């Protein structure tokens, strides 16, 4: 009886431990802190740090986009919150936007963030109610970022100089 109990315990333990190892290799955490964060995500108890998110918003409203992105990255270390990812993408857009030309690297970074936001949003649709933003959906922001990274004849249009940042 005792042997059977040890066998069952061994089988369960082996499966759980093997599952944990596979999960580690699949999620590839970079530190023990990330292991903890990924565990929270897997357990469904992950929440962003609201205080840092609000700090990011305050910095964003003062046009300190890089600092805002750092705060939001700290607020959502697992990159699992669609709203935070949307704001990170928006900060990339605003910082990278230029009257003559856009910063391709920042726009690409923004595109990655907005794609993450769309994939995390329920039904792939994300709308952020914020009166300070001129684009309130992830789809609009994505289009704007994509257009910024594309090269076309339209780039030579002199009227482009009169466009406004959203």
């Amino acid at each position, binding site marked *: 009886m*005792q*042997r059977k109990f*040890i066998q069952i315990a061994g089988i369960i333990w082996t499966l759980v*431990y093997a599952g944990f190892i596979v999960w580690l*290799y699949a999620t*590839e955490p970079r530190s023990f802190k990330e292991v903890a964060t990924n565990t929270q995500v897997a357990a469904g108890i992950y929440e962003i740090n609201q205080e840092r998110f609000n700090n990011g918003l305050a910095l964003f409203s003062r046009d300190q986009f890089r600092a805002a992105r750092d705060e939001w990255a700290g607020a959502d270390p697992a990159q699992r919150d669609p709203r935070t990812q949307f704001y990170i993408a928006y900060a990339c857009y605003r910082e990278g936007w230029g009257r003559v030309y856009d910063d391709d690297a920042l726009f690409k970074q923004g595109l990655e963030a907005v794609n993450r936001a769309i994939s995390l949003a329920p039904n792939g649709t994300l709308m952020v109610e914020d009166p300070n933003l001129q684009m309130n959906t992830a789809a609009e922001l994505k289009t704007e970022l994509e257009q910024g990274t594309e090269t076309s004849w339209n780039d030579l249009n002199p009227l482009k100089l009169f466009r406004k940042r959203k």
Partner: protein
Amino acid sequence: MKNYAERNRALIHFIVLPTILLTVGLLGGLRIDAQTGKFIFIAPPLVTLVLAILLGSLFVRAGAIDLHHWLAIDQPTLTNLAHLLTLIALFFASAQAFNSVLPESGLLHWMFAFFFLWTLWTNQFSAFDARRLLKSLIVLFGTAFVLKHLLVSGLYAPAGGWFKRIAAALLQGIAIDVPAFAPVTGYVSFFALVLYVVGLLLIAPVPMRPPASAVNKLAAREDALAHESLDETSE
């Protein structure tokens, strides 16, 4: 007293052994980035899986694992399942042990892989017993560990010494692409290999069988008696 021994044997066989092998599986692919100190998990490359199959075949040929006793039709399903999981854990532990001592990329990766393949392939046709196989594996992994974590990593250390200068002179013009990892990676690899050897020491060629029940013992005794009486009548 006997109960304790049986219980401890069962604990080692069904819990400690798979834990050790899975820990090798976990640590074998773990590297620490030299710049940032962050974890890098490297899944076992395809060649390490081939090497693990060859090594598994060696275990069976050398009698280190008697498959007929590990997986048998007359054993309880639970026992077979536990043994199957242990064998799968052994397979992945072997793959990760190779992964741990194999350079990650470049010319050295393929050179090491080739030498491992060559050694394991030629060993398939040698006469081995379990003890000699274990000694041979310790030498094989020990040599690869020294080459990778002491010599090759020394070559690419920022403050390389005389060996770096000699190698740079010898290998002038040959690009050997080896990623730089923190020295702690060597310790992790060493620990993984020690655990792997401990795991191999704990594997019994014939696993412990469940103690025969009173009914089984009676049936066996009856069989023996019947054979004895048959023998007497034939004489």
